[in-house]
């Protein structure tokens, strides 16, 4: 056997089992290797001293191909026929990768390399097509011979694997400089023909008639082409909204939001060049149609805000700034796309077309940093409402434009809605960046459709015996009550140390399903439900108490105004009863103590004992 200098150290041969741990090889001469190929893997038992050629023979019969089609790769090294597996350091349990070359590959490659120079113009044009098509169809467009009408050669086979060599930016730039190509692209009719003949585009147009409007508007086409050419412009747009252009809306031909916003959004495109403060517009101007993730969130939020009943909080808060607060409309076509993602029960049409009084607006004024401190109670409540209460109207341009678009709402102009949406998206993004807690809120609302539906249905039955007994059983688990106690302690600590942070935690708790979202119709039931097992639960009554009262406190902080508005007597009626049962007869004193301790029964007991001189 020819001696091969192997880069890997020679492993112990089969005759020296002492060098290896005894349990590594069951029988030292046979090795089990894993062969991975094309997404599947199989085990093979082979002798240690098998040569690579012998192994290939075995594999070729197994995979039914010829030996010269097989290429074995181990640790990034190609295995040569004359090596032995042990020489290359292949031990028991190692994985060898196998590539089975296609029979025609060598022939194909020779063929394509010959054709390559002649196909270059076709590639270049195709790439321009792809770039412009990218505006309308961001999902990976495979090269198609649409432009073959242009070319002399009748057949232009798809050469995918070679594309990357010629589709580099330098080629595109070169091609664009070619005056004949420029002339071609300047002819919007021709470009339109290209685009409309693209089969994917045709499919899209069937599902989205708006797209054909785009194509008919040569202005838009021209602007888009300009945009695609002007890399600097693209750069600027991208830099402004880097966080957004990351995720793409799932390819859903029925509702492509980028396209739907394009007609109106493109009008805004011109504006954005003029008004550089208006960064928000750019968010919908993504020339490649990338779908901003926050818009996903936001659309979902709006859906939910649409579906949730008007919260009782607005009456409390100053409404002078926006007289039409409850009636301002947000229509957001992207939520249509969202519904297809989320399969939520909320119908998209509601959001799109209903200027009902139940919709709420998001006025995208960046809230002042002091806002969470000033109004911690209201923050976790529907953030849209809180946002609209911000008095500042002068600061942000988006505000101004949004106000103006508010006025336009009655006119119900579609383009202005698109503008509004884009502004909303952009400024929402700004908002999220500036205020992480808001982002947390937003994320919460994603889960809201399920939760709020659930809770709305569940809460009427929540207090039923079956529910309670489940909870009782759950609480009987000492670890569970311990966990609850820990959470409660953490909350108490937080409340004393940094009450401003409590709203931050609230959404997390909501996400866990502990608290119903404040928009639900029965905000009080959860704390009451917690209180009921307090009395009935023999084990660990203290911790249950605490958890109940802590949650109560949290909920009150979380801005449940109906809770706050209730008379203390009603709020604490449960605790009053328990105090009575314990023997504290002074009704008035009990109430006072409970008010002082915010409903914490055990603390109230301590207070009462002290005052009554026990």
């Amino acid at each position, binding site marked *: 056997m020819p001696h091969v200098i192997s880069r890997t150290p020679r492993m112990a041969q089969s005759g020296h089992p002492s060098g290896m741990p005894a349990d590594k090889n069951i029988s030292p001469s046979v090795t089990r290797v894993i062969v991975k190929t*094309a997404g599947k893997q199989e085990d093979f038992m082979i002798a240690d001293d098998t040569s690579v050629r012998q192994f290939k023979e075995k594999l070729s019969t197994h995979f039914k191909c010829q030996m010269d089609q097989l290429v074995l790769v181990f640790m990034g090294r190609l295995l040569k026929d004359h090596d032995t597996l042990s020489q290359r350091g292949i031990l028991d349990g190692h994985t060898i*990768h196998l590539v089975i070359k296609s029979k025609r590959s060598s022939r194909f*490659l020779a063929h394509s390399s010959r054709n390559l120079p002649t196909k270059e113009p076709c590639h270049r044009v195709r790439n321009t097509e792809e770039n412009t098509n990218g505006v309308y169809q961001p999902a990976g467009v495979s090269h198609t011979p649409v432009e073959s009408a242009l070319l002399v050669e009748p057949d232009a086979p798809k050469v995918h694997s070679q594309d990357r060599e010629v589709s580099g930016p330098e080629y595109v730039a070169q091609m664009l400089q070619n005056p004949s190509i420029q002339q071609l692209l300047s002819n919007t009719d021709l470009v339109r023909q290209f685009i409309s003949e693209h089969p994917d585009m045709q499919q899209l147009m069937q599902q989205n008639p708006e797209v054909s409007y785009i194509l008919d508007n040569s202005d838009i086409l021209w602007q888009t082409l300009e945009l695609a050419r002007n890399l600097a412009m693209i750069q600027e747009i991208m830099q402004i909204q880097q966080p957004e252009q990351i995720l793409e809306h799932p390819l859903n031909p029925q509702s492509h939001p980028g396209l739907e916003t394009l007609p109106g959004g493109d009008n805004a495109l011109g504006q954005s060049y003029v008004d550089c403060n208006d960064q928000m517009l750019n968010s919908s101007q993504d020339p490649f149609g990338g779908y901003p993730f926050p818009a996903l969130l936001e659309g979902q939020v709006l859906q939910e805000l649409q579906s949730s009943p008007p919260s009782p909080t607005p009456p409390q808060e100053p409404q002078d700034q926006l007289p039409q607060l409850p009636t301002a409309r947000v229509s957001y076509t992207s939520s249509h796309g969202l519904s297809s993602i989320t399969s939520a029960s909320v119908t998209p049409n509601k959001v799109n077309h209903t200027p009902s009084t139940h919709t709420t607006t998001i006025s995208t004024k960046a809230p002042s940093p002091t806002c969470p401190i000033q109004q911690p109670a209201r923050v976790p409540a529907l953030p849209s409402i809180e946002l609209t209460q911000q008095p500042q109207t002068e600061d942000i341009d988006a505000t101004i434009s949004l106000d103006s678009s508010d006025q336009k709402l009655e006119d119900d102009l579609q383009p202005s809605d698109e503008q509004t949406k884009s502004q909303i998206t952009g400024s929402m993004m700004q908002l999220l960046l500036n205020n992480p807690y808001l982002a947390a809120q937003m994320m919460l609302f994603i889960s809201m459709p399920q939760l709020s539906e659930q809770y709305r249905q569940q809460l009427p039955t929540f207090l039923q015996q079956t529910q309670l007994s489940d909870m009782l059983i759950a609480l009987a688990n000492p670890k569970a009550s311990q966990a609850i106690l820990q959470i409660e302690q953490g909350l108490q600590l937080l409340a004393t140390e940094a009450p401003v942070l409590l709203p931050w935690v609230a959404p997390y708790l909501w996400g866990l399903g502990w608290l119903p979202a404040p928009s639900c119709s029965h905000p009080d039931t959860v704390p009451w439900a917690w209180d009921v097992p307090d009395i009935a639960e023999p084990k660990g009554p203290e911790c249950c108490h605490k958890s109940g009262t802590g949650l109560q406190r949290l909920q009150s902080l979380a801005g449940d105004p109906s809770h706050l508005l209730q008379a203390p007597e009603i709020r604490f009626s449960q605790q009053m009863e328990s105090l009575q049962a314990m023997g504290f007869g002074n009704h008035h004193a009990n109430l006072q103590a409970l008010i002082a301790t915010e409903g914490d029964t055990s603390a109230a007991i301590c207070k009462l004992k002290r005052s009554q001189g026990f």
Partner: protein
Amino acid sequence: MEPPNLYPVKLYVYDLSKGLARRLSPIMLGKQLEGIWHTSIVVHKDEFYFGSGGISSCPPGGTLLGPPDSVVDVGSTEVTEELFQEYLSSLGESLFRREAYNIFENNCNTFTNEVAQFLTGRKIPSYITDLPSEILSTPFGQALRPFLDPIQIQPHGGSPVGRPNGQS
């Protein structure tokens, strides 16, 4: 015998959240995530990645994400460009078809991990491959899962790596 050519293999790591994950994850998930990682393999002067559009390639750093947030040296490989293309084609027909994309189970990092092992025998850093399980192990992640699952990520700027033509 001439020494075979060794081609360097690099892993480009992008944070899709652009820093948001680092800031928001403690609040939202209860644990610290440094980023939402998207990765791609760079070999033979090309960047390869997997998204909802299937396996794509572009010049290194040529997607809309821009330059990578970090570059990890995976090792070096003897696999030639031609062989690598074959391999990618076979992957693109089996495990990494475009419709097989799933943001948790079969995403860009799954692809990168496979390719890295093929090219060098080494896996990519575990903080990247552990990301889905990290997220799904939080209650928040579980709650969000039905909404996140259909999300398809496809960084733009690349062209698909397809099957060689002429096969029957």
